[in-house]
């Protein structure tokens, strides 16, 4: 398989080179670096504009965009095939937040410390997610956080605890006739894990403690039991949510059917449009609720930029990353595609308030609660195990305690098999 991929890749490169009439090293001494990413829509436009400005200010470097799929899974698969084959192209990689440790442990991306990035300027959690074995491997480009959307016409203030949320939701159902109290992403996919992670943090639990899986702890059980109660005993989360992704929850909340929603920031701008939204001007965002044992928690998502270890021009690649993560570029992105900047100082910038849909102070409150998902090279596989058992518990095929115990056992075995379990030290590069 991987031999064939390498072959195809080389052929493709040859053809590309022949077609474009230029190799990787242009004769004029111009350095060429490649940047994979979306080339369509507003995101493609803003990126093209920024790369154009970069080339104008760096006349020695030419940045070529490589079209890659927008779907995260497909992009990941493509990256893995390229990097596993030792390709030097693309030079820059746009990573999902949970991929950095995987790519770092595999030795596919360069540690960025030698470029001495300005780490003090970024939210600490966004950097923590990009560290592996004490080195920084990617720079956070924009940040995504899970947040609680609440209706300002149904409550005076956002709930601080899960019990408060439940009672407001029940009252909204009883007195206002709302079909649902709370909606979240409950289908068997990554979204379910991010929802669970926020409940778990609220109860003071975590998934990993160093090399040990601890999701089966008392806090884990309390969090999962709460989710199950909200589905069946309290009836505030519709069972249909167990098939829902982000958009189905947004439709329910936007149509005024739910008192609360757990979702990412993208929904905010869309639901302020009164031509399609029944709740425009009647909602706000807050950190997720918590209990006395834990703290409000936001699952951390977003995009990072990293340098391919086999890149022939790492300095030029870094120059592009450095440029794209400058405040000016982040502010522009926030305005055009509504993505949250990763630099703390920008949230005090009046310019950001004008361009971002969400009031920057509200956004910042949530981002400061952000917690990375387990920082491990095998996160995706761990998450798959957890997704299956969480979904079995919530669809009542397994008792919550059994589901978490089984998940913990399987996840620990996976870590051990990967050489990352308890007792493992320098198994990875």
């Amino acid at each position: 398989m991987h031999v064939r991929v390498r072959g195809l890749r080389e052929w493709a490169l040859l053809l590309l080179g022949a077609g474009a009439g230029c190799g990787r090293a242009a004769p004029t001494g111009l350095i060429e670096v490649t940047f994979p990413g979306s080339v369509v829509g507003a995101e493609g436009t803003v990126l093209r504009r920024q790369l154009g400005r970069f080339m104008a200010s760096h006349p020695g470097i030419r940045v070529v965009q490589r079209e890659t799929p927008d779907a995260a899974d497909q992009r990941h698969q493509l990256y893995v095939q390229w990097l596993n084959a030792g390709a030097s192209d693309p030079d820059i990689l746009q990573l999902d937040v949970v991929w950095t440790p995987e790519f770092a442990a595999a030795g596919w991306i360069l540690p960025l410390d030698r470029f001495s990035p300005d780490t003090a300027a970024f939210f600490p959690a966004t950097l923590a997610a990009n560290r592996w074995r004490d080195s920084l491997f990617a720079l956070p480009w924009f940040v995504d956080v899970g947040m609680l959307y609440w209706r300002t016409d149904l409550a005076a203030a956002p709930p601080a605890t899960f019990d408060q949320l439940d009672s407001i939701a029940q009252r909204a159902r009883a007195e206002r006739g709302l079909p649902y109290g709370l909606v979240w992403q409950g289908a068997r996919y990554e979204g379910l894990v991010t929802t669970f992670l926020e409940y778990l943090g609220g109860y003071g639990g975590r998934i990993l403690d160093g090399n040990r899986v601890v999701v089966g702890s008392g806090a884990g059980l309390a969090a999962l039991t709460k989710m199950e109660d909200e589905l069946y005993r309290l009836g505030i989360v519709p069972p249909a949510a167990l098939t829902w992704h982000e958009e189905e929850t947004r439709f329910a909340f936007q149509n005024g059917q739910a008192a609360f929603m757990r979702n990412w920031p993208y929904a905010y701008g869309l639901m302020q449009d009164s031509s399609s939204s029944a709740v425009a001007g009647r909602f706000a965002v807050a950190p997720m609720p918590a209990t006395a044992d834990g703290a409000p928690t936001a699952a951390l998502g977003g995009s990072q930029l990293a340098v391919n270890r086999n890149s022939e021009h790492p300095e030029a690649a870094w120059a592009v990353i450095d440029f794209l993560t400058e405040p000016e570029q982040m502010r522009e992105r926030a305005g055009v595609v509504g993505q949250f900047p990763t630099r703390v100082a920008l949230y005090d910038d009046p310019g950001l308030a004008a361009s971002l849909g969400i009031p920057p102070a509200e956004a910042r409150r949530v981002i400061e609660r952000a917690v990375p998902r387990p920082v491990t090279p095998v996160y995706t596989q761990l998450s798959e195990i957890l997704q299956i058992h969480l979904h079995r518990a919530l669809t009542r095929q397994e008792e919550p305690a059994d589901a978490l115990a089984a998940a913990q056992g399987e996840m620990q075995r996976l870590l051990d098999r990967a050489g990352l379990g308890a007792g493992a030290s320098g198994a990875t590069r």
Partner: protein
Amino acid sequence: MRPAEPAAGLEREEARVAWRLVLPALGTIVLVALFPLMWTLWESVHLHDLRMPWLGRPFVGVDNYLEALRDPRFWSALAHTLLFTVTSVGLELGLGLGLALAMNRGFRGRGVVRAAVLIPWAIPTVVSALLWRFMFDGQTGIANAVLVNLGVLRAPHVWFIHAWSAWVPVILADVWKTTPFVALLLLAGLQNIDPSLYEAARIDGAGAWRQFRYVTLPLLAPAILVALIFRTLDAFRVFDLIYVLTGGGPGTSTEPLALYTFNALLQNLRFGYGSALSVIVFGITFALALLYIRLLGADLVGGKR
């Protein structure tokens, strides 16, 4: 009284030409069928985890196979595959036979009906899977609307969060899509039966059931077996329909072997383990095919009398 020598030379020459002529075809088969199969076998006895490249690619013997055999998710995927295969193929065969018998009669507009019956078969599986997913949607699906209006259900049912009810749209979608295929295969078989046999049976006093039982069924057996082979092997490798309809959920309770293998190979990029699963699936389908060919071959020989 030709001398033997030149004739033998000619034969040898012809054989040489023949080999040269079939060489491209043989080469193609080796390249596209044998080579990937051997490669998969080779991968299946190695640890090859693209997402854990630090583990290297050591030879691990039958470890990947043992892991599969010890994994409850593998066994439940096998059970789901068998359940799906037996139920959907059984229903398709029964309904397809009924349809074929109906279409075999002379009536006005028979040509139109025969063409119309093929429409579900012509729709790409992914599209029809999406159609059925929308129809069985818990909130807006037509299935719930009809069942609630008829009084069968008191409240809308969320089909995809119960292990048993998630199978309903899956099986229905497959039956809806492939019954026409079975029906047309059987119809072709029916049209090969000599009408004079029915005449003779009638003269002997056989009723409709006896005619069906003792004339139609035995003579239709080869066509039924062909339909069974195609459908069983297809159903055993079911992937796209379930991938789109349920994603294998809730939990993993509708996950067939092909989806589990896809997951190991292409989601988790575990080439060694995924290849071992592929080899197991290949082994089972190959055994099924052999079994059917033996049955079919025996029947054809018997049919010649």
